[in-house]
Protein backbone atom coordinates (compact mmCIF):
# COMPACT_ATOMS: atom_id res chain seq x y z
CA UNK A 1 0.00 0.00 0.00
CA UNK A 2 1.52 3.30 -1.07
CA UNK A 3 0.45 6.85 -0.22
CA UNK A 4 -3.17 5.89 0.34
CA UNK A 5 -5.52 8.88 0.53
CA UNK A 6 -9.21 9.27 1.27
CA UNK A 7 -11.27 12.43 1.66
CA UNK A 8 -14.77 12.86 3.04
CA UNK A 9 -16.51 16.12 2.23
CA UNK A 10 -13.30 18.11 2.08
CA UNK A 11 -11.76 16.48 5.15
CA UNK A 12 -8.79 14.21 4.76
CA UNK A 13 -9.50 11.01 6.66
CA UNK A 14 -6.44 9.17 5.39
CA UNK A 15 -3.48 11.31 4.40
CA UNK A 16 -0.84 9.31 2.65
CA UNK A 17 -0.31 5.97 4.37
CA UNK A 18 2.38 3.50 3.30
CA UNK A 19 2.21 -0.01 4.68
CA UNK A 20 3.51 -3.41 3.85
CA UNK A 21 2.17 -6.51 5.54
CA UNK A 22 4.11 -9.74 5.16
CA UNK A 23 2.59 -13.11 4.53
CA UNK A 24 1.95 -15.07 7.71
CA UNK A 25 2.30 -12.20 10.17
CA UNK A 26 -0.17 -10.59 12.52
CA UNK A 27 -0.12 -6.89 11.78
CA UNK A 28 -1.82 -4.45 14.12
CA UNK A 29 -3.05 -1.10 12.94
CA UNK A 30 -3.25 0.86 16.14
CA UNK A 31 -4.83 4.22 16.72
CA UNK A 32 -7.49 6.18 18.62
CA UNK A 33 -11.09 6.43 17.44
CA UNK A 34 -11.40 8.54 14.32
CA UNK A 35 -7.77 8.09 13.30
CA UNK A 36 -8.70 6.53 9.96
CA UNK A 37 -8.34 2.85 10.88
CA UNK A 38 -11.72 1.65 9.63
CA UNK A 39 -11.52 3.79 6.52
CA UNK A 40 -8.18 2.21 5.68
CA UNK A 41 -9.22 -1.34 6.40
CA UNK A 42 -12.46 -0.96 4.41
CA UNK A 43 -10.46 0.29 1.45
CA UNK A 44 -8.24 -2.78 1.75
CA UNK A 45 -11.33 -5.01 1.93
CA UNK A 46 -12.76 -3.47 -1.22
CA UNK A 47 -15.76 -1.78 0.45
CA UNK A 48 -14.62 1.77 -0.23
CA UNK A 49 -12.87 3.48 -3.09
CA UNK A 50 -9.70 5.43 -2.48
CA UNK A 51 -8.97 8.93 -3.71
CA UNK A 52 -5.28 8.35 -4.29
CA UNK A 53 -2.41 5.94 -3.91
CA UNK A 54 -1.77 2.37 -4.94
CA UNK A 55 -2.88 -0.80 -3.19
CA UNK A 56 -2.16 -4.44 -3.82
CA UNK A 57 -3.83 -7.03 -1.63
CA UNK A 58 -2.92 -10.63 -2.49
CA UNK A 59 -1.73 -9.39 -5.85
CA UNK A 60 -4.91 -7.54 -6.76
CA UNK A 61 -6.44 -4.09 -6.48
CA UNK A 62 -9.35 -4.52 -4.01
CA UNK A 63 -11.39 -1.93 -5.88
CA UNK A 64 -11.48 -4.16 -8.95
CA UNK A 65 -11.11 -7.62 -7.43
CA UNK A 66 -13.90 -10.15 -7.86
CA UNK A 67 -15.21 -13.38 -6.37
CA UNK A 68 -11.95 -15.30 -6.79
CA UNK A 69 -10.15 -12.73 -4.66
CA UNK A 70 -12.91 -12.84 -2.06
CA UNK A 71 -12.40 -16.60 -1.78
CA UNK A 72 -8.96 -15.78 -0.35
CA UNK A 73 -9.87 -13.13 2.24
CA UNK A 74 -11.94 -13.19 5.40
CA UNK A 75 -13.59 -10.11 6.89
CA UNK A 76 -14.80 -9.30 10.39
CA UNK A 77 -16.51 -5.93 10.35
CA UNK A 78 -16.42 -3.52 13.26
CA UNK A 79 -20.07 -4.16 13.95
CA UNK A 80 -22.23 -6.92 12.57
CA UNK A 81 -25.14 -8.67 14.23
CA UNK A 82 -25.50 -12.19 12.88
CA UNK A 83 -28.90 -13.69 12.23
CA UNK A 84 -30.31 -14.31 15.72
CA UNK A 85 -32.58 -17.13 14.54
CA UNK A 86 -29.86 -19.38 13.13
CA UNK A 87 -27.80 -21.62 15.39
CA UNK A 88 -24.03 -21.26 15.57
CA UNK A 89 -23.61 -24.33 13.36
CA UNK A 90 -26.24 -23.16 10.85
CA UNK A 91 -24.63 -19.73 10.63
CA UNK A 92 -21.32 -21.35 9.72
CA UNK A 93 -23.06 -23.67 7.24
CA UNK A 94 -24.82 -20.74 5.58
CA UNK A 95 -21.55 -18.89 4.94
CA UNK A 96 -19.66 -22.10 4.11
CA UNK A 97 -22.04 -22.50 1.18
CA UNK A 98 -20.68 -19.31 -0.42
CA UNK A 99 -17.14 -20.73 -0.82
CA UNK A 100 -15.70 -23.29 -3.21
CA UNK A 101 -13.68 -25.17 -0.60
CA UNK A 102 -14.79 -24.24 2.91
CA UNK A 103 -13.13 -25.40 6.12
CA UNK A 104 -14.87 -28.24 7.96
CA UNK A 105 -17.56 -26.89 10.30
CA UNK A 106 -16.52 -28.87 13.38
CA UNK A 107 -12.89 -27.88 13.04
CA UNK A 108 -13.90 -24.22 12.79
CA UNK A 109 -16.19 -24.52 15.83
CA UNK A 110 -13.23 -25.92 17.77
CA UNK A 111 -10.93 -23.17 16.55
CA UNK A 112 -13.16 -20.36 17.82
CA UNK A 113 -14.07 -22.24 21.00
CA UNK A 114 -17.79 -22.57 20.30
CA UNK A 115 -18.15 -26.35 20.14
CA UNK A 116 -20.47 -26.51 23.17
CA UNK A 117 -22.52 -23.65 21.72
CA UNK A 118 -22.93 -25.27 18.28
CA UNK A 119 -26.70 -25.68 18.62
CA UNK A 120 -27.40 -22.42 20.44
CA UNK A 121 -29.13 -19.68 18.47
CA UNK A 122 -26.76 -16.83 17.60
CA UNK A 123 -29.17 -14.41 19.29
CA UNK A 124 -28.59 -16.06 22.67
CA UNK A 125 -24.78 -15.73 22.60
CA UNK A 126 -22.85 -13.19 24.67
CA UNK A 127 -21.08 -10.34 22.91
CA UNK A 128 -17.75 -12.16 23.06
CA UNK A 129 -19.22 -15.39 21.74
CA UNK A 130 -20.95 -13.56 18.88
CA UNK A 131 -17.64 -11.99 17.97
CA UNK A 132 -15.93 -15.36 17.95
CA UNK A 133 -18.71 -16.73 15.74
CA UNK A 134 -18.08 -13.76 13.46
CA UNK A 135 -14.38 -14.71 13.37
CA UNK A 136 -15.42 -18.31 12.63
CA UNK A 137 -17.51 -17.13 9.69
CA UNK A 138 -14.58 -15.09 8.40
CA UNK A 139 -12.46 -18.26 8.59
CA UNK A 140 -15.01 -20.61 7.02
CA UNK A 141 -13.75 -19.98 3.48
CA UNK A 142 -10.21 -20.90 4.67
CA UNK A 143 -8.78 -17.49 3.68
CA UNK A 144 -5.11 -16.61 3.39
CA UNK A 145 -5.68 -13.13 4.74
CA UNK A 146 -8.01 -12.09 7.52
CA UNK A 147 -9.16 -8.56 8.38
CA UNK A 148 -10.33 -7.94 11.94
CA UNK A 149 -11.70 -4.49 12.67
CA UNK A 150 -11.56 -3.81 16.43
CA UNK A 151 -12.30 -7.40 17.43
CA UNK A 152 -12.62 -6.79 21.18
CA UNK A 153 -13.97 -3.25 21.55
CA UNK A 154 -16.45 -3.12 24.41
CA UNK A 155 -15.60 -6.57 25.81
CA UNK A 156 -15.12 -7.53 29.42
CA UNK A 157 -11.64 -8.88 30.31
CA UNK A 158 -12.58 -12.56 30.11
CA UNK A 159 -14.27 -12.19 26.72
CA UNK A 160 -11.22 -10.31 25.46
CA UNK A 161 -8.90 -13.07 26.62
CA UNK A 162 -10.98 -15.71 24.84
CA UNK A 163 -11.01 -13.73 21.63
CA UNK A 164 -7.28 -13.12 21.90
CA UNK A 165 -6.66 -16.85 22.22
CA UNK A 166 -8.66 -17.40 19.04
CA UNK A 167 -6.69 -14.75 17.17
CA UNK A 168 -3.37 -16.05 18.49
CA UNK A 169 -4.39 -19.47 17.15
CA UNK A 170 -4.71 -18.01 13.65
CA UNK A 171 -1.00 -17.31 13.48
CA UNK A 172 -0.36 -20.99 14.10
CA UNK A 173 -2.54 -21.76 11.08
CA UNK A 174 -0.24 -19.61 8.96
CA UNK A 175 -2.87 -16.96 8.26
CA UNK A 176 -1.96 -13.36 7.63
CA UNK A 177 -3.97 -11.16 9.97
CA UNK A 178 -4.58 -7.45 9.60
CA UNK A 179 -5.97 -6.20 12.87
CA UNK A 180 -7.18 -2.75 13.83
CA UNK A 181 -7.43 -1.81 17.48
CA UNK A 182 -7.30 1.12 19.82
CA UNK A 183 -5.92 -0.99 22.64
CA UNK A 184 -2.17 -0.91 23.08
CA UNK A 185 -2.17 -4.14 25.08
CA UNK A 186 -4.08 -5.92 22.34
CA UNK A 187 -1.48 -4.98 19.74
CA UNK A 188 1.29 -5.90 22.15
CA UNK A 189 -0.23 -9.25 22.93
CA UNK A 190 -1.12 -10.33 19.40
CA UNK A 191 0.93 -8.53 16.78
CA UNK A 192 4.29 -9.24 15.19
CA UNK A 193 4.43 -5.71 13.89
CA UNK A 194 2.49 -2.56 14.64
CA UNK A 195 1.79 0.70 12.86
CA UNK A 196 0.37 3.54 14.91
CA UNK A 197 -2.01 5.83 13.06
CA UNK A 198 -3.20 9.24 14.21
CA UNK A 199 -5.15 11.80 12.19
CA UNK A 200 -4.81 9.80 9.00
CA UNK A 201 -1.04 9.35 9.15
CA UNK A 202 1.30 6.66 10.39
CA UNK A 203 3.20 8.17 13.32
CA UNK A 204 5.21 5.12 14.36
CA UNK A 205 5.86 1.60 13.24
CA UNK A 206 7.85 -1.38 14.35
CA UNK A 207 7.63 -4.36 16.66
CA UNK A 208 5.37 -3.84 19.69
CA UNK A 209 8.40 -3.76 22.01
CA UNK A 210 10.54 -1.42 19.95
CA UNK A 211 7.75 1.03 19.33
CA UNK A 212 8.46 4.71 19.83
CA UNK A 213 12.09 4.24 20.92
CA UNK A 214 10.90 2.72 24.10
CA UNK A 215 14.32 1.14 24.66
CA UNK A 216 15.99 4.54 25.02
CA UNK A 217 13.55 5.98 27.54
CA UNK A 218 14.42 5.95 31.27
CA UNK A 219 13.42 3.12 33.59
CA UNK A 220 11.50 3.86 36.76
CA UNK A 221 12.53 2.20 40.04
CA UNK A 222 10.02 2.46 42.86
CA UNK A 223 9.61 1.06 46.38
CA UNK A 224 8.11 1.93 49.72
CA UNK A 225 10.36 2.81 52.63
CA UNK A 226 8.85 3.44 56.06
CA UNK A 227 5.44 3.87 54.48
CA UNK A 228 6.64 6.44 51.95
CA UNK A 229 6.75 5.75 48.23
CA UNK A 230 10.04 6.50 46.57
CA UNK A 231 10.36 6.67 42.81
CA UNK A 232 13.58 7.18 40.84
CA UNK A 233 14.12 7.46 37.10
CA UNK A 234 17.36 6.19 35.65
CA UNK A 235 19.02 5.43 32.34
CA UNK A 236 21.14 2.71 33.97
CA UNK A 237 18.70 0.49 35.88
CA UNK A 238 21.16 -2.37 36.55
CA UNK A 239 23.64 -0.12 38.32
CA UNK A 240 20.97 1.76 40.24
CA UNK A 241 19.28 -1.43 41.44
CA UNK A 242 22.59 -2.88 42.54
CA UNK A 243 23.42 0.19 44.60
CA UNK A 244 19.97 0.32 46.09
CA UNK A 245 19.72 -3.31 47.15
CA UNK A 246 23.31 -3.34 48.45
CA UNK A 247 22.51 -0.44 50.72
CA UNK A 248 19.26 -2.01 51.83
CA UNK A 249 21.00 -5.26 52.77
CA UNK A 250 23.74 -3.46 54.67
CA UNK A 251 21.37 -1.28 56.65
CA UNK A 252 18.69 -3.95 57.04
CA UNK A 253 16.01 -1.94 55.25
CA UNK A 254 12.84 -3.50 53.93
CA UNK A 255 12.07 -2.21 50.39
CA UNK A 256 8.42 -2.98 50.12
CA UNK A 257 6.93 -3.38 46.64
CA UNK A 258 10.27 -2.92 44.90
CA UNK A 259 9.92 -2.82 41.13
CA UNK A 260 11.71 -1.58 38.07
CA UNK A 261 9.45 -0.66 35.18
CA UNK A 262 10.18 0.35 31.65
CA UNK A 263 8.03 3.16 30.29
CA UNK A 264 4.44 2.12 29.99
CA UNK A 265 3.54 1.24 26.41
CA UNK A 266 0.24 2.97 26.93
CA UNK A 267 2.16 6.17 27.69
CA UNK A 268 4.34 5.79 24.63
CA UNK A 269 1.22 5.25 22.57
CA UNK A 270 -0.61 8.19 24.07
CA UNK A 271 2.30 10.53 23.50
CA UNK A 272 2.65 9.29 19.90
CA UNK A 273 -1.02 9.67 19.02
CA UNK A 274 -1.27 13.01 20.80
CA UNK A 275 1.63 14.32 18.70
CA UNK A 276 -0.01 12.96 15.57
CA UNK A 277 -3.40 14.46 16.36
CA UNK A 278 -1.76 17.78 17.15
CA UNK A 279 -0.51 18.09 13.59
CA UNK A 280 -3.86 17.74 11.90
CA UNK A 281 -7.30 19.11 12.73
CA UNK A 282 -10.50 17.36 11.71
CA UNK A 283 -9.30 13.84 12.40
CA UNK A 284 -12.46 12.99 14.27
CA UNK A 285 -14.63 13.36 11.20
CA UNK A 286 -13.54 10.03 9.80
CA UNK A 287 -16.39 7.52 10.15
Amino acid at each position, binding site marked *: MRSLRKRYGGVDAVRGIDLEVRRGEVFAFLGPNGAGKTTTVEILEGYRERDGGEITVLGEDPQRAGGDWRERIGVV*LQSCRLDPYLSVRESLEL*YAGYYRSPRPIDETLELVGLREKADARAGTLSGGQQRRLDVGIALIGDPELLFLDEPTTGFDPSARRHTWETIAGLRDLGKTVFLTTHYMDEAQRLADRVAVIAAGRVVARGTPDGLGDRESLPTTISYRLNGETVSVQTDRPVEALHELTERALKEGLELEGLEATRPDLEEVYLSLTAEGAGTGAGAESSP
Partner: protein
Amino acid sequence: MSGLALVAHQFRYDQKTFWRNPASVFFTVAFPVILLLIFATVFGDETVDVGGGIETTTYYVPAIVTLSVISATMQSLAMSLVIAREDGRLKRGRGTPMPPWVFIVGRVGNSIVVALLMLVLIATLGRVAYGVDVPWEHLPAIVLALVVGAAAFCCLGIALTAAIPSQDAAAPIVNALLLPLYFLSGIFIPDDQLPSGVIHFADAFPIRHFFEAFFGAYVPADGGSAFEWGNLAVVAAWGAVGLLIAVRRFRWTPRSG
Protein backbone atom coordinates in the same frame (compact mmCIF):
# COMPACT_ATOMS: atom_id res chain seq x y z
CA MET B 1 -21.67 -24.04 -6.34
CA SER B 2 -23.50 -22.97 -9.45
CA GLY B 3 -25.74 -19.92 -9.31
CA LEU B 4 -28.90 -21.99 -9.00
CA ALA B 5 -27.48 -24.20 -6.25
CA LEU B 6 -26.39 -21.06 -4.39
CA VAL B 7 -29.91 -19.62 -4.64
CA ALA B 8 -31.32 -22.90 -3.29
CA HIS B 9 -28.80 -22.80 -0.43
CA GLN B 10 -29.68 -19.19 0.42
CA PHE B 11 -33.41 -19.96 0.16
CA ARG B 12 -33.14 -22.85 2.65
CA TYR B 13 -31.65 -20.61 5.33
CA ASP B 14 -34.07 -17.77 4.56
CA GLN B 15 -36.91 -20.22 5.15
CA LYS B 16 -35.47 -21.26 8.52
CA THR B 17 -35.07 -17.65 9.57
CA PHE B 18 -38.58 -16.76 8.43
CA TRP B 19 -40.36 -19.55 10.30
CA ARG B 20 -38.34 -19.05 13.49
CA ASN B 21 -39.02 -15.31 13.67
CA PRO B 22 -42.18 -14.79 15.76
CA ALA B 23 -42.82 -11.37 14.20
CA SER B 24 -42.76 -12.65 10.62
CA VAL B 25 -44.90 -15.69 11.45
CA PHE B 26 -47.45 -13.58 13.27
CA PHE B 27 -47.80 -10.70 10.84
CA THR B 28 -47.49 -12.70 7.63
CA VAL B 29 -49.23 -15.97 8.52
CA ALA B 30 -51.38 -15.63 11.63
CA PHE B 31 -52.64 -12.07 11.19
CA PRO B 32 -54.42 -12.67 7.83
CA VAL B 33 -56.09 -15.77 9.27
CA ILE B 34 -57.30 -13.79 12.28
CA LEU B 35 -58.60 -11.03 9.99
CA LEU B 36 -60.58 -13.54 7.90
CA LEU B 37 -62.09 -15.07 11.04
CA ILE B 38 -63.07 -11.64 12.39
CA PHE B 39 -64.59 -10.38 9.14
CA ALA B 40 -66.47 -13.63 8.59
CA THR B 41 -67.81 -13.58 12.14
CA VAL B 42 -68.87 -9.93 12.13
CA PHE B 43 -70.24 -9.64 8.57
CA GLY B 44 -70.81 -13.34 7.79
CA ASP B 45 -74.61 -13.19 7.27
CA GLU B 46 -74.59 -10.28 4.87
CA THR B 47 -74.16 -10.10 1.15
CA VAL B 48 -71.96 -7.83 -0.91
CA ASP B 49 -73.41 -6.07 -3.90
CA VAL B 50 -70.72 -7.09 -6.32
CA GLY B 51 -71.30 -9.10 -9.50
CA GLY B 52 -75.00 -9.52 -8.81
CA GLY B 53 -74.61 -10.12 -5.08
CA ILE B 54 -72.29 -12.56 -3.33
CA GLU B 55 -71.80 -13.78 0.21
CA THR B 56 -69.53 -11.65 2.36
CA THR B 57 -67.23 -14.59 3.01
CA THR B 58 -66.87 -15.16 -0.74
CA TYR B 59 -65.74 -11.54 -0.95
CA TYR B 60 -63.31 -11.70 1.94
CA VAL B 61 -61.43 -14.87 0.93
CA PRO B 62 -59.78 -13.29 -2.16
CA ALA B 63 -59.49 -9.98 -0.28
CA ILE B 64 -57.48 -11.59 2.52
CA VAL B 65 -55.36 -13.57 0.04
CA THR B 66 -54.52 -10.23 -1.59
CA LEU B 67 -53.47 -8.82 1.77
CA SER B 68 -51.47 -11.97 2.56
CA VAL B 69 -49.53 -11.75 -0.69
CA ILE B 70 -48.62 -8.10 -0.10
CA SER B 71 -47.69 -8.89 3.48
CA ALA B 72 -45.48 -11.86 2.49
CA THR B 73 -43.74 -9.84 -0.19
CA MET B 74 -43.61 -6.06 0.15
CA GLN B 75 -44.02 -5.82 3.92
CA SER B 76 -41.90 -8.81 4.89
CA LEU B 77 -39.08 -8.01 2.44
CA ALA B 78 -38.89 -4.32 3.29
CA MET B 79 -38.71 -5.08 7.01
CA SER B 80 -36.28 -7.99 6.86
CA LEU B 81 -33.93 -6.31 4.37
CA VAL B 82 -33.74 -3.12 6.44
CA ILE B 83 -33.03 -5.16 9.57
CA ALA B 84 -30.30 -7.16 7.80
CA ARG B 85 -28.85 -3.97 6.31
CA GLU B 86 -28.70 -2.12 9.62
CA ASP B 87 -27.34 -5.19 11.46
CA GLY B 88 -24.47 -5.21 8.96
CA ARG B 89 -25.35 -8.61 7.50
CA LEU B 90 -25.81 -7.31 3.96
CA LYS B 91 -22.41 -5.65 4.12
CA ARG B 92 -20.90 -8.82 5.54
CA GLY B 93 -22.36 -10.84 2.68
CA ARG B 94 -20.69 -8.51 0.18
CA GLY B 95 -17.36 -9.49 1.73
CA THR B 96 -17.87 -13.10 0.58
CA PRO B 97 -17.60 -14.54 -2.94
CA MET B 98 -21.41 -14.90 -3.14
CA PRO B 99 -22.77 -12.79 -6.03
CA PRO B 100 -25.16 -10.15 -4.61
CA TRP B 101 -28.05 -11.16 -6.88
CA VAL B 102 -28.11 -14.61 -5.23
CA PHE B 103 -29.05 -13.04 -1.94
CA ILE B 104 -31.89 -11.00 -3.46
CA VAL B 105 -33.25 -13.89 -5.53
CA GLY B 106 -33.20 -16.16 -2.47
CA ARG B 107 -35.21 -13.63 -0.47
CA VAL B 108 -37.69 -13.02 -3.30
CA GLY B 109 -38.11 -16.78 -3.72
CA ASN B 110 -38.79 -17.06 -0.02
CA SER B 111 -41.50 -14.39 -0.25
CA ILE B 112 -43.20 -15.95 -3.28
CA VAL B 113 -43.26 -19.40 -1.67
CA VAL B 114 -44.81 -17.95 1.51
CA ALA B 115 -47.38 -16.09 -0.65
CA LEU B 116 -48.35 -19.36 -2.39
CA LEU B 117 -48.66 -21.10 0.98
CA MET B 118 -50.97 -18.33 2.17
CA LEU B 119 -53.15 -18.82 -0.91
CA VAL B 120 -53.50 -22.51 -0.02
CA LEU B 121 -54.12 -21.74 3.67
CA ILE B 122 -56.75 -19.03 3.17
CA ALA B 123 -58.50 -20.87 0.32
CA THR B 124 -58.67 -24.04 2.44
CA LEU B 125 -59.96 -22.14 5.46
CA GLY B 126 -62.57 -20.41 3.28
CA ARG B 127 -63.71 -23.72 1.84
CA VAL B 128 -63.79 -25.70 5.08
CA ALA B 129 -65.11 -23.06 7.48
CA TYR B 130 -67.34 -20.95 5.23
CA GLY B 131 -68.07 -23.10 2.18
CA VAL B 132 -66.42 -20.67 -0.24
CA ASP B 133 -65.79 -22.68 -3.41
CA VAL B 134 -62.27 -23.01 -4.64
CA PRO B 135 -62.57 -22.16 -8.36
CA TRP B 136 -60.33 -24.94 -9.66
CA GLU B 137 -61.25 -24.20 -13.26
CA HIS B 138 -59.61 -20.77 -12.91
CA LEU B 139 -56.42 -22.05 -11.33
CA PRO B 140 -54.16 -20.76 -14.13
CA ALA B 141 -55.64 -17.27 -13.78
CA ILE B 142 -55.35 -17.39 -9.98
CA VAL B 143 -51.72 -18.48 -10.02
CA LEU B 144 -50.85 -15.95 -12.73
CA ALA B 145 -52.43 -13.09 -10.75
CA LEU B 146 -50.67 -14.21 -7.60
CA VAL B 147 -47.25 -14.55 -9.19
CA VAL B 148 -47.46 -11.22 -11.06
CA GLY B 149 -48.61 -9.52 -7.86
CA ALA B 150 -46.01 -11.22 -5.67
CA ALA B 151 -43.17 -10.32 -8.06
CA ALA B 152 -44.34 -6.71 -8.37
CA PHE B 153 -44.76 -6.22 -4.62
CA CYS B 154 -41.33 -7.79 -4.01
CA CYS B 155 -39.81 -5.14 -6.28
CA LEU B 156 -41.78 -2.43 -4.47
CA GLY B 157 -40.65 -3.77 -1.10
CA ILE B 158 -36.98 -3.72 -2.11
CA ALA B 159 -37.42 -0.22 -3.54
CA LEU B 160 -39.08 0.93 -0.31
CA THR B 161 -35.99 0.02 1.75
CA ALA B 162 -34.28 3.05 0.18
CA ALA B 163 -36.77 5.28 2.01
CA ILE B 164 -36.37 3.57 5.40
CA PRO B 165 -33.48 5.03 7.41
CA SER B 166 -33.43 2.67 10.40
CA GLN B 167 -34.84 -0.52 11.88
CA ASP B 168 -37.18 1.43 14.13
CA ALA B 169 -38.59 3.32 11.17
CA ALA B 170 -39.36 0.16 9.16
CA ALA B 171 -42.67 -0.89 10.71
CA PRO B 172 -44.20 2.63 10.91
CA ILE B 173 -43.30 3.50 7.31
CA VAL B 174 -44.53 0.19 5.87
CA ASN B 175 -47.78 0.25 7.85
CA ALA B 176 -48.45 3.92 7.17
CA LEU B 177 -48.36 3.10 3.47
CA LEU B 178 -50.24 -0.18 3.45
CA LEU B 179 -52.96 0.07 6.12
CA PRO B 180 -54.84 3.07 4.66
CA LEU B 181 -54.63 1.55 1.19
CA TYR B 182 -56.09 -1.75 2.44
CA PHE B 183 -59.12 0.22 3.69
CA LEU B 184 -59.45 2.39 0.59
CA SER B 185 -58.92 -0.46 -1.87
CA GLY B 186 -61.81 -2.58 -0.60
CA ILE B 187 -59.75 -5.18 1.27
CA PHE B 188 -61.23 -4.43 4.72
CA ILE B 189 -64.45 -2.68 3.65
CA PRO B 190 -66.35 -4.21 0.70
CA ASP B 191 -66.55 -2.27 -2.56
CA ASP B 192 -70.25 -1.56 -2.36
CA GLN B 193 -69.82 0.42 0.85
CA LEU B 194 -67.01 2.60 -0.43
CA PRO B 195 -67.82 5.94 -2.10
CA SER B 196 -66.79 5.97 -5.75
CA GLY B 197 -64.38 8.83 -5.06
CA VAL B 198 -62.46 6.62 -2.66
CA ILE B 199 -62.16 3.85 -5.24
CA HIS B 200 -60.97 6.35 -7.86
CA PHE B 201 -58.33 7.49 -5.40
CA ALA B 202 -57.27 3.91 -4.63
CA ASP B 203 -57.02 3.24 -8.38
CA ALA B 204 -53.94 5.44 -8.39
CA PHE B 205 -52.09 2.79 -6.35
CA PRO B 206 -51.17 -0.82 -7.10
CA ILE B 207 -53.06 -2.53 -4.26
CA ARG B 208 -56.48 -1.85 -5.75
CA HIS B 209 -55.42 -3.18 -9.16
CA PHE B 210 -53.88 -6.29 -7.68
CA PHE B 211 -57.03 -6.90 -5.66
CA GLU B 212 -59.21 -6.54 -8.76
CA ALA B 213 -56.96 -8.85 -10.75
CA PHE B 214 -57.00 -11.50 -8.06
CA PHE B 215 -60.70 -11.07 -7.25
CA GLY B 216 -61.51 -11.39 -10.96
CA ALA B 217 -59.65 -14.70 -11.06
CA TYR B 218 -61.16 -16.06 -7.85
CA VAL B 219 -64.73 -14.84 -8.32
CA PRO B 220 -65.11 -14.14 -12.06
CA ALA B 221 -68.20 -12.23 -13.20
CA ASP B 222 -70.72 -14.40 -15.06
CA GLY B 223 -69.44 -15.03 -18.56
CA GLY B 224 -66.44 -12.77 -17.93
CA SER B 225 -62.82 -13.79 -18.31
CA ALA B 226 -60.87 -14.76 -15.19
CA PHE B 227 -57.83 -13.00 -16.63
CA GLU B 228 -57.88 -9.31 -15.75
CA TRP B 229 -55.25 -8.26 -18.25
CA GLY B 230 -55.68 -4.53 -17.71
CA ASN B 231 -55.24 -4.72 -13.96
CA LEU B 232 -52.36 -7.18 -14.28
CA ALA B 233 -50.61 -4.78 -16.64
CA VAL B 234 -50.93 -1.92 -14.12
CA VAL B 235 -49.56 -4.13 -11.34
CA ALA B 236 -46.66 -5.23 -13.54
CA ALA B 237 -45.91 -1.61 -14.44
CA TRP B 238 -45.73 -0.69 -10.74
CA GLY B 239 -43.39 -3.62 -10.26
CA ALA B 240 -41.17 -2.37 -13.08
CA VAL B 241 -40.96 1.07 -11.49
CA GLY B 242 -40.11 -0.58 -8.17
CA LEU B 243 -37.41 -2.65 -9.86
CA LEU B 244 -35.88 0.45 -11.41
CA ILE B 245 -35.75 2.25 -8.06
CA ALA B 246 -34.45 -0.90 -6.34
CA VAL B 247 -31.61 -1.31 -8.82
CA ARG B 248 -30.55 2.32 -8.45
CA ARG B 249 -31.17 2.98 -4.79
CA PHE B 250 -30.75 -0.25 -2.86
CA ARG B 251 -27.88 -0.07 -0.37
CA TRP B 252 -25.91 -2.84 1.27
CA THR B 253 -24.30 -0.84 4.03
CA PRO B 254 -25.95 0.39 7.24
CA ARG B 255 -27.32 3.92 7.18
CA SER B 256 -27.00 4.47 10.89
CA GLY B 257 -23.93 3.83 12.99
